[in-house]
């Protein structure tokens, strides 16, 4: 395709992404390098329905001029990136200096919000992504072998975990897994432990979140693989059968390689989405036990005093994290793109 034709075809989508993603992205990067100007504090008398007292407030007049001259705020470079609430270079250095052994060092990192979040996020990504792919594949194989009329219904029901709005879906599941809810008390029966609670300990909360993650994302993998299964070339299967391959061997040596490009697509999307895990943490009120970078952003933006620079910094760190995580898949795509080189 000629450059010019390409340009016109690509222009509308490029424009949409440029205006609504690229431009905000530059302002986010800029915001992460600036902070608000130093505030001038004054103590004044303040009164409310419950009486008067002297209270500290901000003197806007005092810093008006500098705010007008530099509306973006104070340039701080990478100061926010390295501060305690983000990469915490200084604190990590101190912990390293004072460590008794390596494990001690790793567990003490848990006190720093960024590393605590990374601990859960990486575990979640590493466990959930392969499970989603495996589970999605098994469901797809199973549903695909059903009778024609059953298939349509099963496709709908299989999509349910993905399409019920997580806002309420997690609320309902949260009550079901409560120690007095149907699933929670079922588990108590199963393990014969009347005090078992999925919400009270860090380990069980992590397991709950991971199970939820697999349950919620398996339908996506399922529908993609299910579609891929429709095009498995029959000749290859027959050839394999003639060669005496068992059903299991057929699946491993014919079907799975056929689906491998789809596995890459699902892996790409899942790695990215799992790295940004957020909704279940809020939905299950799990932040006491598990946090993620997206949760930190939400926490910074959702408070009464919003930490915009901090949220911008964490967003940039998220993007960098995603790029590192996707590197293997991207290199693979690059090779496929230039097969001759």
């Amino acid at each position, binding site marked *: 395709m000629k450059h010019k034709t390409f340009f016109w075809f690509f222009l509308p989508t490029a424009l949409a992404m440029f205006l609504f993603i690229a431009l905000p992205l530059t302002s986010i990067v800029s915001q992460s390098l600036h902070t608000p100007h130093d505030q001038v504090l004054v103590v004044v008398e303040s009164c409310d329905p419950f*009486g008067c007292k002297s209270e500290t407030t901000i003197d806007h007049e005092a810093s008006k001029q500098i705010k007008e001259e530099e509306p973006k705020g104070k340039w701080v470079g990478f100061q926010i990136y390295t501060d305690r609430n983000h990469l915490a270079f200084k604190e990590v250095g101190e912990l390293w200096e004072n460590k008794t052994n390596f494990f001690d060092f790793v567990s003490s990192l848990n006190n720093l919000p960024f590393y605590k979040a990374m601990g859960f996020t990486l575990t979640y990504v590493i466990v959930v992504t392969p499970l989603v792919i495996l589970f999605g594949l098994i469901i797809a194989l199973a549903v695909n072998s059903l009778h024609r009329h059953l298939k349509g219904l099963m496709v709908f029901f299989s999509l349910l975990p993905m399409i019920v709005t997580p806002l309420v879906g997690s609320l309902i599941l949260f009550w079901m897994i409560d120690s007095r809810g149907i699933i929670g008390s079922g588990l108590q029966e199963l393990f014969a432990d009347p005090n078992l609670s999925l919400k009270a300990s860090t380990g069980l909360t992590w397991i709950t979140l991971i199970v939820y993650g697999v349950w919620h994302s398996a339908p996506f993998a399922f529908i993609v693989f299910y579609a891929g299964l429709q095009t498995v070339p029959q000749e290859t299967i027959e050839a394999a059968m003639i060669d005496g391959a068992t059903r299991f061997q057929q699946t491993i040596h014919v079907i799975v390689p056929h689906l491998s490009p789809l596995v890459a697509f699902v892996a790409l999307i899942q790695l990215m989405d799992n790295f940004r895990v957020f909704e279940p943490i809020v939905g299950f009120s799990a*932040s006491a036990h598990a946090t993620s970078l997206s949760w930190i952003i939400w926490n910074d933006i959702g408070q*009464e005093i919003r930490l915009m620079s901090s949220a911008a910094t964490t967003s940039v760190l998220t993007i960098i994290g995603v790029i590192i995580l996707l590197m293997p898949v991207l290199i693979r795509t690059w090779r496929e793109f230039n097969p001759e080189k």
Partner: protein
Amino acid sequence: MFLRKIATVVALTTLASSAWAGCGISEGRVSIVGNEFPAIQTIGAGAMECAGDGVTVETNLTADHQKINLPGMTGNPAEFTSAIVANSSIVALMNNDVIRPLNDLVEKHGQGLQKSQLVTIDGNIMGIAFMANAQHLTYRSDVLKDLGIAVPSTYEEMLAAAKKIANYNLMQYPLGGAYAAGWNLAEEFVNMYIGHGGEFFKPGTAEIAVNNQHGIDALNMMKALSEYMNPDFLTHDSNATSAEWKAGNVALMNMWGSRIGALRGDEVDAAVVAATATAGPMTVGGGTTAASTLWWDGFTIAKNISDADAEATFIALMHAIRPEMLNETTSPQAVWLIDGYVPTPAAAGVFAAAAMGTKPYPMLPYAGLMHSAAGVEIVDFMQGKETAEQALAGLEAAYTTAATEKGYL
């Protein structure tokens, strides 16, 4: 007779031609942003009554109001002419200098207001409060009576009562509390720390000072209380805590006055409803200050709008909080600060809190930063993974980083 009729017609024509709606606004734009609970819905609906010829009134009442109000008032002209806020959230608007002093408007149109409704900073009226809220003790009168326990007035007594109830196997986890990690847990810490007589900051500065004996005592008391709570307490916000109460699982809790009405709802077991009783907030550690905070909700007017719009907005909101708006439906919705409000039974706890001289939630520019840092940092202590000193040191470090970023330090 004839003359009087003519006079009426003339009066009507004048009214119609100058298009004065019922509230006496001739023109202007009113756009209100605020939270979405029933009392504020009532205020929004009241302001809407002023819509008419030349006057547009819009409301955006949503739980996400804090995310949209500041950007919506920063532009010029501002999208929202008024934001309904509480004492914790007015600070974000004042910090960014987007709301205007109301002194002239109060003088002109604020005759119905009581002096206590005015929120004044350095002589400037920045907001008009119309309702109050506080956390206070809620108890099961039947359980306490059965075991011969007096209604606790201190947290130590509450702890003793919980121990007794648990020992008699009446309830497995007799205490309730909104201890969900995040805002709720931090709010309980704020209450407890104030109850112990602590000050959060070095006076006149934004330097935090919670890593002290008051802080340690406050945390230890919270930990002791949590031993008698459902083990999931770190996930229990006030919704979940109320649900525990309604199910009859808890006998004592510190709960928001605004939620007491719903605890006596139709669906709840009659025995629980009959025994749900309230008292004022408790004290702690031998102190005299209640371990609770007082809250108000009120309205503010944007700075970056025309004076005409500001006036229209003020009049419309004054219309919404006029004493005549109080009736059988609206009175139980909140503890109104409006003249002529007769407290409903559900309001007793909040009134007791005010009568005790409970401190209001600190209206400091950086209090919110401390609050959010606390919600994250004391979680590990509550789970027994850290000592109180470590948690408080973490809280101070997290706050200091955030406050540095915002330019307070």
